[in-house]
């Protein structure tokens, strides 16, 4: 049985994994770069090992350093979190070679699902609906034109090794076909060293709906229902909820079966996610499989009542799943909002910096998974997501009200965040009605970014608060009465509070 887990990650997901380790009586090891000595995952872990410089390729992506750290601390397993090395087949294989348990699927599953053309082929063979298009790389440009005419415009040209929007071209008219294919191939070759592209029908204004799956090493594979992830900007998810407001019980049943079949097709082991694009008529198509834990996994945990990290560790320990598909039920509604350190009013420009003050929402139906604390300086090298806010309520409308309350209570000072923007998403009629797809933010930009004005009283309260701070600083600037320079900060703070009352 696993005794000690090295978490090859940082930020909220590293802390989240360590929390479950602690509950299971498993010791945890953090790894950290130069930029992360003060990060929460280092403080939370039982042990911590420095693995290199701030840029990810010199630390969190450096396989040798991570394996060394695991050996040094005698960790018997590695949890990769999401991002970084979590979908790196070479890393999974290396762990195996070194006799360290990789908490995730094997290299075969990662490789097959990582290459988009091989995944499409595999899914097609397994009877899982894929977006209409080609299942082999395009070599002949004339053949491509024929294919595209068969599929019907508009289409997407996509790089097999693609990701992050690179090597992707939307084609709307026939005379753009050739230039689109050529530029997609050249971009993919530059970015991934692999110029293979394929063609997919372009689904207009799709929903993004995904299914959580769990599979053990004894052939048991089941799904934990769907997550609706259509509120996105720049292909990045912002809000997720479950159940999906557009889902029907019949389609859920069907899609769940397909998700399980997709995972079984690659002999999957562990927790994974099958992503589908879904059109307004609930036609759905396999998009890709994420062979790791997903950022938005907590909404599933909350509604199904399962700790997914605990399940991952149990599966890695070669235990059979302790429940069957028919044991799983959904209770109520859960929503997650991702809090980014960014400025929504300024094209979501990232906003690293020092957290001066933070108040997290508390009470009924609240969960926060974050990693920043007062006095912590968010480094500029990594992802801007600083916290996930997850609420639960008996139904969707109550869950939206609760999320609004949570965002109202959530205060972070020092860096700009997306909190106020998320409040506007929650207030928007299209969201409230559940009538939205991946074009939501773009479509309603005018309403979502409109500034809210406080009345003149409220403005004047701000003026008064600024004046009081100014006045207080004037008082403090005067020489102290007793020479007590060496008193502690809190005493000084207490004194100030008294002064300002006088």
């Amino acid at each position, binding site marked *: 049985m696993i005794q000690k887990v090295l978490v090859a990650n940082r930020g909220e997901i590293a802390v989240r994994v360590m929390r479950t380790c602690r509950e299971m009586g498993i010791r945890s090891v953090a790894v950290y770069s130069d930029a992360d000595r003060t990060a929460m995952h280092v403080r939370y872990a039982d042990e911590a090992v420095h693995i290199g410089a701030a840029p990810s390729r010199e630390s969190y992506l450096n396989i040798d350093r991570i394996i060394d750290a695991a050996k040094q601390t005698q960790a018997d397993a590695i949890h990769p979190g999401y991002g970084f090395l979590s979908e790196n087949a070479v890393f999974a294989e290396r762990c195996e070679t070194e006799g360290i348990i990789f908490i995730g699927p094997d290299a075969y599953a990662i490789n097959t699902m990582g290459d988009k053309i091989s995944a499409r082929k595999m899914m097609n063979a397994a009877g899982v609906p894929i977006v209409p298009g080609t299942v082999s790389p395009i070599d002949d440009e004339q053949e491509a034109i024929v294919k595209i005419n068969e599929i019907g415009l508009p289409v997407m040209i996509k790089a097999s090794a693609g990701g992050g929007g690179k090597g992707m071209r939307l084609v709307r008219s026939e005379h753009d076909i050739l230039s689109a294919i050529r530029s997609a191939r050249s971009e993919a070759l530059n970015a991934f060293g692999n110029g293979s592209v394929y063609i997919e029908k372009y689904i207009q204004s799709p929903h993004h709906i995904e299914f959580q799956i769990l599979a053990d090493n004894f052939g048991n594979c089941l799904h934990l229902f769907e997550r609706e992830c259509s509120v996105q900007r720049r292909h990045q998810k912002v809000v997720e909820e479950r159940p999906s407001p557009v889902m029907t019980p019949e389609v859920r049943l069907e899609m769940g079966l397909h998700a399980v079949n997709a995972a079984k097709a690659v002999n999957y082991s562990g927790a994974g996610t099958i992503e589908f694009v879904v059109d307004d008529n609930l036609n759905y198509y396999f998009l890709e499989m994420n062979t790791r834990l997903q950022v938005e996994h907590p909404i599933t945990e909350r509604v199904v009542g399962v700790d997914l990290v605990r399940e991952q560790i149990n599966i890695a320990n070669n235990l059979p799943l302790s429940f069957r598909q028919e044991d799983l039920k959904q209770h109520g509604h859960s929503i997650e909002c991702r809090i980014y350190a960014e400025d929504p009013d300024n094209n979501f420009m990232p906003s690293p910096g020092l957290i001066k003050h933070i108040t997290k929402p508390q009470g009924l139906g609240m969960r926060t998974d974050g990693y920043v604390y007062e006095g912590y300086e968010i480094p500029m090298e990594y992802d801007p997501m600083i916290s996930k806010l997850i609420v639960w309520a008996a139904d969707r409308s109550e869950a939206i009200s609760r999320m609004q309350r949570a965002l109202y209570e959530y205060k972070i000072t020092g860096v700009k965040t997306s909190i106020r923007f998320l409040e506007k998403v929650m207030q928007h009629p299209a969201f409230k009605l559940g009538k939205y797809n991946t074009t939501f933010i773009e479509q309603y930009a005018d309403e979502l970014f409109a500034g809210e004005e406080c009345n003149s009283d409220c403005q004047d309260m701000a003026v008064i608060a600024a004046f009081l701070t*100014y006045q207080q*600083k004037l008082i403090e600037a005067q020489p102290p009465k007793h020479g007590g320079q060496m008193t502690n900060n809190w005493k000084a703070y207490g004194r100030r509070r008294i002064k300002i009352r006088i």
Partner: protein
Amino acid sequence: MALEIKINDRLTSIEQISSEGSKQTFRVGGKIYDVDALMVENGVYSILYNNKSYNIEVIQGENDKDFEVNTLYNAYNIDIIDAERKYLMSRKTNDADDEANIKAPMPGKVVRVPVKTGDKIQSGDTVVVVSAMKMESEYKVKQDRLVKEVLVKEGDIVKGGQTMIVVE
């Protein structure tokens, strides 16, 4: 004595008329406010006015007369304009009318500086590209300009608020 104060683009004044413990009376612009105001957390004020409960965060800006102030839904830039400040402002205005500093609004790393001192650049031209949190931001000029000074080079780490390029 009333103090001039600027909140975003609005110029107003504030005067503390009386103060007894946390109970205070202010005149802001032409309006009188009887409030109960005190700091409850470091930098956070609780103000009660007409029974309404306000929580307001004050963050010190670049100097002791600049503040960023957050109410529930708004963030304001507030400047106290005392005699010293007025003097400085009057001097500054006379200095270089059309000079502009291109500042980094956030910490980051300089990725590219496609201009050099003396370049004549056109509206929309990029003068510097800064990367933070895996995202690159391009800084462009909004009108035709002359590059007067280039203060950063590729690979430099910049702080939020740091001037990178001066144009005129």
